[in-house]
């Protein structure tokens, strides 16, 4: 399944900019370190990169722009899709 998102914010610069439109896949999702994912937390969707697999189905996600991002501990269930391409 393909999901469409528009980026809001600067925590993923220089790779993703405010206003970029992205397509993500939620099929055959096996998140690994380095993947860019959208995950749900506190009722919001966030775009971050998986920095580490901390345990089975547990990950640490961070922004590419370290000065504008904090760490998130997330689980597989929170991940809604993996980045495919911009459009």
């Amino acid at each position, binding site marked *: 399944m*393909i*999901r*469409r*998102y*528009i*980026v*809001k*914010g*600067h*925590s*993923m610069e220089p790779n*993703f900019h*405010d206003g970029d*439109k*992205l*397509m993500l896949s939620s099929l055959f999702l096996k998140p690994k370190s380095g993947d860019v994912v*959208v995950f749900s*937390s*506190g009722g*919001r*969707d*966030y*775009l*971050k990169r998986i920095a580490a697999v*901390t345990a089975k189905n547990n990950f640490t996600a961070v*922004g590419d722009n370290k*000065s*504008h*991002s*904090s*760490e*998130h*501990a*997330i*689980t597989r269930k*929170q991940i809604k899709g993996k980045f495919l*391409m911009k*459009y």
Partner: protein
Amino acid sequence: MNLLQMTARIIDRFLEPKTAHAHCDIPCGIYDPHYAQLAAHTVVRMTQLIEQKKEDAHAVARYAKTKEEHAELCKQEIRIIWGDYFKPEHIQKYPQLHEMTYNIMKAASKARQEVSMQAAEELLESVNRFAEIFWETKGVRTYRAKAPYPTEREIAVPQLK
């Protein structure tokens, strides 16, 4: 532009894409309960000094002022970590966090309003426990040590090596 991208752009005309947030509060990621622990120790110390120098009105006034300031500082530091650092997944893992934070607010207010060593010690203990949970969420082990302060009470310290 491939067919998939063209299709997505056409769909956008009728249905807006969802928002993926790529931001957070600044400063980001720099949180530490140490200030709250120092403040709680200061509340204990000021309570000790007030009890030791009851006859000196001027000294008591100064100690009381400092005690109140640090009780408030302690509350502020705990509120920042509770509100800005802890995420839903932390609350899920440590469901006692909300009640613990509430109890720290109440303990700090009591220690501020009264000259009560029991209240000051309860505040310090709850702040130390809060600090232990904070470090646990970062995967950092802690240990309790006798603080090198005149309070001669414990402090929860992260093992950062």
